């Protein structure tokens, strides 16, 4: 009895009352939970962040295929990896991929995997624009925006279970499965607007650090702002991001003056155009 009381007291420390269902509590589960409570943390280690990201990335790849063009994939990885080297987390296993999808969007999952759709790539005009978008996504990873959104939405108990789970353990990890599923859903709801503005603010700096014309991000945002908002390829991006006009207004205020010294950095438009030359252009594409 004493043990159970101690157990419940411990559980109470980590789980809000509402997150608790005593009806499902059995001793085996409770003991396991105690082991996690001993770790008394919902902090996710970097390997776990990567593992969670891999699960979400796998789901993304289940929703849309990879573009079958190794040259383009390598090109995007080169741009992205170079930008990641300019950041505070240069040693994450950064990986980039183009999804063969006509939607206009880009995504970053925890741990450093970043996706961009073919639809977005086709609307860009220079490597600096690609760099701007990748740098925005890299910023989400640096700031762990999605990880925090997942944490916020998940029950403390589940986070604690995942945090306490040793990575070496083989076999199914129910907590990971649940978090991957919840994590994937975060991408259909989107982040807090301020996280998006923060990623814009950091993205232009990272692009400038990489030696690019830092106006690539506002340039592609402006291009998208000119697309008919009824274009169905923008539906998910519009739902999950602040209005483009607001994002442009913010960059307008931020960049004025502060970025003058980077005015002559290259945008590498010719290299970009050569790299994506084999892709269909949107105007020629059958919708």
């Amino acid at each position, binding site marked *: 009895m004493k043990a159970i009381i101690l157990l419940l007291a411990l559980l109470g420390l980590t789980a809000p009352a509402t997150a608790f269902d005593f009806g499902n509590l059995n001793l085996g589960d409770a003991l396991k939970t105690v082991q996690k409570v001993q770790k008394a943390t919902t902090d996710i280690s970097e390997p776990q962040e990567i593992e969670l990201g891999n699960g979400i990335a796998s789901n993304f790849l289940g929703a849309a295929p990879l573009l079958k063009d190794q040259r383009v994939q390598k090109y995007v990885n080169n741009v992205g990896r170079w930008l990641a080297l300019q950041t505070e987390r240069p040693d994450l296993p950064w990986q980039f991929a183009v999804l063969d999808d006509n939607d206009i969007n880009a995504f970053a999952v925890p741990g450093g995997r970043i996706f961009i759709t073919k639809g977005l790539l086709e609307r860009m005009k220079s490597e600096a624009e690609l760099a701007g978008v990748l740098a925005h996504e890299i910023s989400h990873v640096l700031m762990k925006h999605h990880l925090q959104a997942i944490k916020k939405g998940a029950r403390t108990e589940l986070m604690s279970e995942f945090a306490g789970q040793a990575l070496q353990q083989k076999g199914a990890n129910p907590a990971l499965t649940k978090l991957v599923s919840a994590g994937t859903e975060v991408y259909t709801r989107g982040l807090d607007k301020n996280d998006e503005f923060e990623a814009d603010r950091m993205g232009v700096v990272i692009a400038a650090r990489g030696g690019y014309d830092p106006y690539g991000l506002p340039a592609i945002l402006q291009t998208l702002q000119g697309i008919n908002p009824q274009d169905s390829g923008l539906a998910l991006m519009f739902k999950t991001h602040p209005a483009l006009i607001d994002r442009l207004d913010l960059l307008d205020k931020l960049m004025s003056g502060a970025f*003058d010294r980077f005015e002559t950095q290259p945008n590498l438009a010719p290299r970009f155009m050569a790299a994506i030359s084999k892709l269909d252009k949107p105007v020629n594409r059958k919708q």
Partner: protein
Amino acid sequence: MKPIFTLCVVACLLSPIATQAGEIAYTVRATELKAKPFADAATLRSLAEHGKVEIITRQASWMQVKSDGTTGWVKMLSLRLGNGDAPIKSGDSGLGALFNVAATGNSGSTVTTGVRGLSEENLKNARPNPQALETMNGYAVSKEAASGFAKAGKLKSQQIDYLPPSGKGGN
């Protein structure tokens, strides 16, 4: 609901997707049309707020535009695409919101849901694809390779701190 979207589908097919050159934009503040893309270049004329221009090309923070027959340069971020009288809105307003209702299925419409790979529904129902994840691993490049790629493009690392949220601009 349905007729509106049928109309939209037809209209979207007919109108080519925006390419920036030749597009109409409007100024979000009174600004000067410069002879060259420099702040201290000669001023060709003044543009009022909500003045319409035609876009020619971009060079860093400058956009080459045509205004009433005069070609010159204005700051890119002093422009928004579209018609100044009815700026294109996105996000939670106007037609974008109308569209989102359709896309999330709340209206009972199934106009585009499921047609494209990355729709909300497809993401929610996505099954993992570990094989594709493996293929993606094969695209990764090393730090050294990325540095070589940057060098080939004459990209040089720069020192600059992140900007504060308020963003006053200026040095």
